[in-house]
């Protein structure tokens, strides 16, 4: 199968407008005849569900948690970008587009990114109309702040809880449709399999997590809005239940998985403290607006931070990148922190952290101004570390945060399976090899509010979809397979828990496929994953049954997926013999340690086709052409 990205013809500024005109429409009276299944209720899923129901489609929505409001978009802190240019500082659609393509290290699809920048302003308008309490200026207009990777202030925010407020906005729109009966909500469900019938996605099989029953739902299209796969590293800033299950299971049914090796390590997280730690907590990138990152100049300097005088401190980001300073993009900031720690200049009890210091900002603006901007983040830090960041510098360390890779989608957000769409972090499309701060919220909501309502109609209007009942043999077969897998997991009765395997896998992934990667390490990793997978299926410890709420069983199923998926991630990382964005191969770097891209050989999206567990996946390439932004080495100096 050849990849057709379906990028519309014409100048980049006109592509989306022309495409919206060219897409076939579904008659309003016919919309209610279509059944749309949406998996996941984060920004992408909730906004898509609400918008499609408003148009008149019948929508069924599924989520793992007890309520759709819990999806992990809720934890996004810093903000959402939009090319409003309210501050009059030179922003434009073109600049947001340019910054995003450059920030993604020229591995994103230009047409998609341009559309994202075009839509960005509408997201702010719609969210404000829904009652999202954005930060305001005294005159009542919206406030902005700056964020990494940009030299303009285009980030809208609601204190340090922007993701929460945007999600609650989308959730309220979703619940309004639930109240009207146009959306049916199915919480505490996990998608076990995708149903493909006559070449099109036609339904899903879910496990009811409370009763353990398998449930079949048929539909005319399926939207996966299930987030990223950062938890393959075990420790990440993701929520405990974030998983690769839905996208991986769809991949096994024929959806290509693109660029899995593009994973983002966020530079400002609370450092690891002990072996029982279950997650890492992000400290918003917005803190780098006012905080200065430093380490002692001398590795032997073990004084406490306030005793280290100015001349003995190395503000290494300001030194290495004078024009962007502390606001360099995430991948650059993370690697710089790693370099300091590798030099032995890390601080704190483990030596695995650097300082993020607010004393200058507090002196300049006063403690209350800092509290106003970041109060909840400072409190969160205080809760975790028992240290008061108003008095002593924060200690931070990079942690896995976001995954740019995901299911391959065309311009319409459709995967390689007709009728299967993928939105938000779960797809691969807009961020290339590195996502800029405050762009995830933008993309999730752009996909759900403003892209899918058009492109889904375009698909449904021309698709020939025979009636398919959820009691069709396809569904029974998938239910049986899912039940058998659960029985198999429960029958192993071994010695090691799913968490043990997850931790072990995560450690290997972090060591060999984390902030810096090399061929030797990746080959070593690739030899260990299949062994671990084999052992997992022989020695897993699990109790209880499949006919009840069994959280250990849920976890085991997700770890089983990670043990398959991790291999693809490592293979992708090994095959991409260049450094770009979040993918840093030690063999490919400039003399001063910056990432060295190879545009001759690797200017493409790598879309992998599943060929069986443990079998070599097939690589398909979508060439990326850059007509509007000139390929250049990223330079933040």
């Amino acid at each position, binding site marked *: 199968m050849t990849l057709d990205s379906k990028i519309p013809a014409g100048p980049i500024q006109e592509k989306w407008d022309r495409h919206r005109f060219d897409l076939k429409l579904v008659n309003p009276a016919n919309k209610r005849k279509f059944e749309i299944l949406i998996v996941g209720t984060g920004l992408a899923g909730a*906004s898509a569900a609400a918008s499609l129901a*408003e148009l008149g489609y019948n929508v069924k929505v599924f989520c793992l*948690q*007890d*309520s*759709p*409001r*819990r999806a992990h978009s*809720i*934890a996004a802190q810093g903000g959402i970008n939009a090319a*409003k240019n309210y501050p009059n500082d030179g922003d434009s659609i073109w600049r947001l587009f340019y910054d995003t393509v450059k920030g993604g290290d020229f591995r994103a699809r230009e047409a998609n990114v341009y559309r994202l920048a075009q839509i960005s302003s*509408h997201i*702010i*308008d*719609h*969210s*404000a*109309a*829904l*009652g999202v*309490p*954005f*930060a*305001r*200026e*005294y005159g*009542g207009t919206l406030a902005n702040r700056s964020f990494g990777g940009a030299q303009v202030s285009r980030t809208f925010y*609601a204190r340090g*809880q922007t993701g*929460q*407020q945007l999600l*609650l906005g989308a959730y*309220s*729109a979703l*619940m*309004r449709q*639930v109240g009207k009966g146009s959306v049916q*909500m199915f919480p505490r469900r996990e998608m076990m399999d995708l149903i493909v019938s006559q070449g099109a996605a036609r339904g899903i099989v879910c496990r009811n997590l409370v009763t353990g029953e398998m449930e079949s739902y048929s539909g005319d299209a399926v939207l996966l809005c299930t987030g990223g796969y950062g938890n393959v590293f075990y420790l990440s800033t993701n*929520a*405990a*239940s974030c998983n690769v299950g839905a996208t991986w299971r769809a991949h096994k049914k024929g959806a290509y998985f693109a660029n899995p090796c593009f994973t983002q390590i966020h530079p400002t997280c609370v450092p690891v403290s*002990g072996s*029982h730690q*279950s997650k890492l*907590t*992000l400290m918003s990138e917005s803190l780098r607006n006012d905080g200065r990152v430093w380490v002692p100049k001398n590795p032997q300097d073990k004084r406490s931070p306030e005793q280290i005088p100015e001349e003995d401190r190395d503000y290494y980001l300001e030194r290495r990148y004078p024009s962007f300073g502390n606001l360099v993009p995430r991948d650059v900031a993370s690697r710089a922190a790693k370099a300091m720690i590798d030099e032995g200049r890390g601080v704190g009890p483990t030596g695995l952290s650097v300082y993020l210091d607010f004393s200058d900002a507090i002196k300049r603006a006063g403690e209350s101004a800092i509290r106003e901007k970041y109060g909840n983040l400072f*409190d969160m830090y205080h*809760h*975790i570390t*028992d240290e008061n960041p108003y008095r002593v510098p924060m200690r931070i360390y990079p942690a896995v945060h976001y995954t740019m890779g995901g299911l391959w989608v065309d311009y319409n957000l459709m995967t390689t399976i007709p009728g299967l769409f993928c939105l938000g972090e779960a797809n691969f499309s807009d961020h290339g090899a590195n996502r800029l701060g405050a762009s995830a919220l933008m993309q999730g909501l752009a996909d759900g*509010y*403003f892209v899918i309502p058009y492109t889904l109609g375009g698909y449904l209007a021309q698709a020939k979809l025979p009636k398919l009942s959820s009691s069709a043999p396809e569904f029974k077969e998938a239910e049986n397979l899912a039940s058998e897998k659960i029985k198999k997991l429960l029958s192993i009765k071994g010695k090691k*828990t799913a968490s*043990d395997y997850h931790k072990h896998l995560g450690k290997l992934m972090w060591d060999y496929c984390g902030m810096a990667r090399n061929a030797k390490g990746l080959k070593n990793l690739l030899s260990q994953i299949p062994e671990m997978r084999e052992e997992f299926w022989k020695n897993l*410890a*699990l*109790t209880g049954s499949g006919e009840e*709420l*069994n959280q*250990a069983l849920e976890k085991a199923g997700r770890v089983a997926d990670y043990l398959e998926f991790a291999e693809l991630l490592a293979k992708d990382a090994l095959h991409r013999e260049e450094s770009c964005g979040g993918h840093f191969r030690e063999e490919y770097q400039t003399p001063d340690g910056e990432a060295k891209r190879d545009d001759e050989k690797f200017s493409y999206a790598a879309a992998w086709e599943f060929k069986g567990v443990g079998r070599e996946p097939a690589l398909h390439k979508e060439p990326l052409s850059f007509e509007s932004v000139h390929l250049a080495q990223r330079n933040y100096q």
Partner: protein
Amino acid sequence: MKFFLEVWRQKNAQSQGGLVRYEVVGISPEMSILETLDVLNEQLLEKGEEPIAFDSDCREGICGMCSLVINGYPHGPEKASTSCELRMRHFQDGQTIIIEPFRAKAFPIVRDLVVDRSAFDRVVAAGGFVSVNTGNAPDANCILVPKDVADKAMDAAACIGCGACVAACPNAAAMLFVAAKISHLALMPQGAPERDARVINMRAQMDKEGFGHCANEYACEAACPKEIKVSNIAKLNREFLRAVVCSDK
């Protein structure tokens, strides 16, 4: 550190539950109470026993999924903290810690420490929104919101929907949760057109779900991990009065 945990175990909604005593060792002060339960669960699994079911997700105090009553306090005795943020340094080595689910008629127990809070979703579906379809919005700066009003609305909107207010209330009232949403939207100009219907419908749904009445105990405010103030309840009552008495609808 070493702890004795007395944990509520209950097979399912129909069965009888009770406290079971466990010992956990090797706990460090920076671990959270949920990570302590993780350690205990790993031990139980390795012994072939069924682990304790409890809800949690983001583990950084924002998703509202965790829902434990710890030594009698929803989310534990620390102020402005969710269960997942509660660190073991707040307990003494060797202490006994009693862990129960949130208890309220409207939050039936699903298993062990897991409860069903879908009543909250139904209350929101009854009116906790602004009716604006995608595509309808004017430019965001067409709707001016004074900074102090936006700040107050944000204070109320910070609610994470965990239900600790209900669990803390002797009447299992949901007033603080409902009041937070009513306040947030009543303060914003965007919420004004549906102000009356919203408060009437959300209140009616709240009663229908079996939540109790407010008796001014203020236990909700004390338990709220996001420090939502009871003054919002006064606002809810004013909004309600206004809607039923003054409204010309």
